[in-house]
């Protein structure tokens, strides 16, 4: 399974050793049969926590139950989830030389007209729509992660048309990356002082606080996803010392 990790392009699709082939088909099928019987013998709770959530929805400060669960009832999970994202960003962080500015616009000799035009038209729309998504999260499906993903998509477009370059190891980038986690933790711990236990939003401000957390989350997620993308397009970004990096021409 994982023992021989080959990365050549032309390697055969399937690990031919017959033994593993037969065994895995057998077990996968068996697994399928077993789980299906579970599903069919479905005498468990069929409503889950729905009634409980609907009772408490108005206490949560947002109307959309999913956002309520995500950012109020199980806010701790979301906090750790952001930490996961931060972990991966840290692991992958494309390291440019330390002194490059956070955000630099580079003039490209051979401009790709179509892309730059597309980018000029769509980027503002995307930003507006992301803002809407963020705001709508409170009462309809939406929220920080969706807005962040959208903005990251816009930034990919930007990088593709290669007019901007972001140095992720600059102080500004690092602050932005860490922003959502910092805000979330400060709010959480502050609430201990005010409300007695971690992450218990006061009834009046819960909506506002959730919105604040959502916005910061969006910023961080955008930058995080952008850095994930740019780490692939930048070759040999393995280590800091090697600050010679090839920009895609």
């Amino acid at each position, binding site marked *: 399974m994982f023992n021989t*990790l080959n990365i050549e392009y032309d390697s055969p699709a399937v690990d031919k050793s017959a033994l593993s082939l037969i065994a895995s088909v057998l077990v996968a099928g068996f697994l399928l049969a077993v789980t299906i019987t*579970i599903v069919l013998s479905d005498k468990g709770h069929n409503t889950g926590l729905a009634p409980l959530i609907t009772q408490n929805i108005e206490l949560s400060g947002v109307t959309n139950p999913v956002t309520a669960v995500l950012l109020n009832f199980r806010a*701790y999970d979301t906090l750790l989830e952001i*930490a996961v994202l*931060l*972990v*991966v960003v840290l692991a992958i962080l494309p390291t440019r030389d330390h002194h490059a500015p956070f955000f630099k616009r580079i003039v490209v000799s051979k401009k790709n007209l179509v892309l730059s035009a597309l980018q000029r038209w769509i980027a503002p729309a995307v930003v507006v729509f992301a803002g809407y998504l963020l705001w709508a999260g409170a009462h309809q499906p939406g929220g920080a992660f969706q807005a962040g993903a959208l903005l990251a998509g816009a930034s990919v477009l930007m990088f593709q048309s290669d007019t901007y370059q972001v140095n992720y190891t600059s102080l500004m980038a690092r602050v932005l990356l*860490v922003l959502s986690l910092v805000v979330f*933790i400060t709010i*959480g711990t502050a609430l201990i002082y005010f409300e007695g236990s971690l992450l218990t939003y006061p009834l009046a401000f819960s909506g506002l606080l959730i919105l604040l957390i959502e916005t910061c989350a969006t910023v961080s997620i955008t930058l995080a996803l952008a850095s994930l993308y740019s780490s692939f397009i930048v070759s040999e970004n393995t280590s800091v010392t090697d600050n010679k990096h090839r920009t895609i021409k």
Partner: protein
Amino acid sequence: MNELSSSLLLPAIVFLPLLAAIIAFLIGRNQLQGRINICFSLAQFLLVVLTTLLFLHEQTYQSERYVIGGWGAPLGIDLIVDGFSILMIALTGLLTLLITLYSASYFSDKYSASEKSLRFWPLWWLLISGLNALFMSADAFNIYVCLEIIGLSAAALVALQGSRAALEAALRYLLVGLLGSLFYLFAIAILYRSHGTLDLMQIAETANHSFPDKVAMILITIGLLLKIALFPLHFWLPPAHANAPTPVSAILSALVVKASLYILIKFWFDVLGATITLGASQMLGALGGAGIIYGSWCAFRATQLKVLIAYSTVAQLGYIFLLFPLSEYSMGVSSFTGSASQAAVYFIVAHACAKAAMFLAAGNLILAQGNGEIAQLKGIAVREPLNVLVFAVAGISLIGLPPSAGFIAKWLLLTTAIESGQWWWVIVVIIGGLLGAMYLFKVLSLAFSTDPAVVESPTSKSTPQVSNVMTTVALILALITLALGFNAEFILNISNTVSEVSGI
């Protein structure tokens, strides 16, 4: 908030490392970095000690719950801590302090590894916060997220070295981790579907011999076995632990592997205790036994020092898995009580300290020696006497020879095995001890043999002298293993709270 109870400090234990990660990430590379991290580790250690003392002080021998967000069990997430988890948290706190001290000088400029420190420190603190979060979480899905944090940060740390072998080991470790977590997630989904709640306590109440619960338990077991690297599924551990930088391989072997084991024990004995069958426990025990023999055999044949120690981890894990068949069955439900659990807990603590000490000592030897080849360790005892001593003391604890904590653990294991009449485990443990002695003394006999060529050769002076901070940290860990060898009462009363805890 008038009377300070240990549960109030729980969130702080998770958030302090997160804060440390953030600050470490923001400061970036400068000479203050080492000292700040040491202060954070000291703060973390004091916090953990305070919580443990408070917990012991309360002597309620019950688990302490902390409700996050004030929503209560099914809806919100709770943090819970009982004897076993407080012990693990204390262990994490201790190892964090010591290994941070070690890494402060390991990643300093002397060893030209300083540019890696920008990535190392944040990942290190995130790993620590993940571990602490895992040990105290009472929510199934929350455990999944914590497992992911630990898995990803550990893989990232293994990849820190940047060499092809390290990257490949990290990739394999990551894929295995993801696969394991997915199986776990799938089991959580099934459990939620049939029990309607994610809180472990509530699942435990309604768990029964029903079909879904059994399938969930199977999936959890196979997923976590993959992550714990029990014998047949151990292929990823040796390369990962061998290629990681020394402090990372120390924390990996000592704690990260134990985290998934902690979860497996929690599900196996508390949450889904009802679904356990005798056959399954014996199977795990058998795999454990085979692991001891095979792990020690591969350790004996290893040529690289760190690979040897990694395989010895595989072997030592085998010992802990003997817990499953040995824990006595009362009215059908196997509870994590009685001497088997004490033996397992003591083994975890003993192995953590000893293995960490051994990895750090080995790291020092490799730094002094220049490469990890065992054959070239000839006559090292002359140049690095203290590190060889630490390596020996840690080895003694792993084999289970008297003055060390390992001996006490082995003693408890043997007593349980004989009391429960399963004498074949006794033979396995004894043979394991002898095999352990084989590979340890293979290294030690090389260290002692004075090869005339090596001793006089001036070249051996060229490699940088191992900084004495790193040696003293290894020595402290070795002394802890020895100290634990003398009075077992201290650890056992903490873990006794485990035996009284029933239900959760």
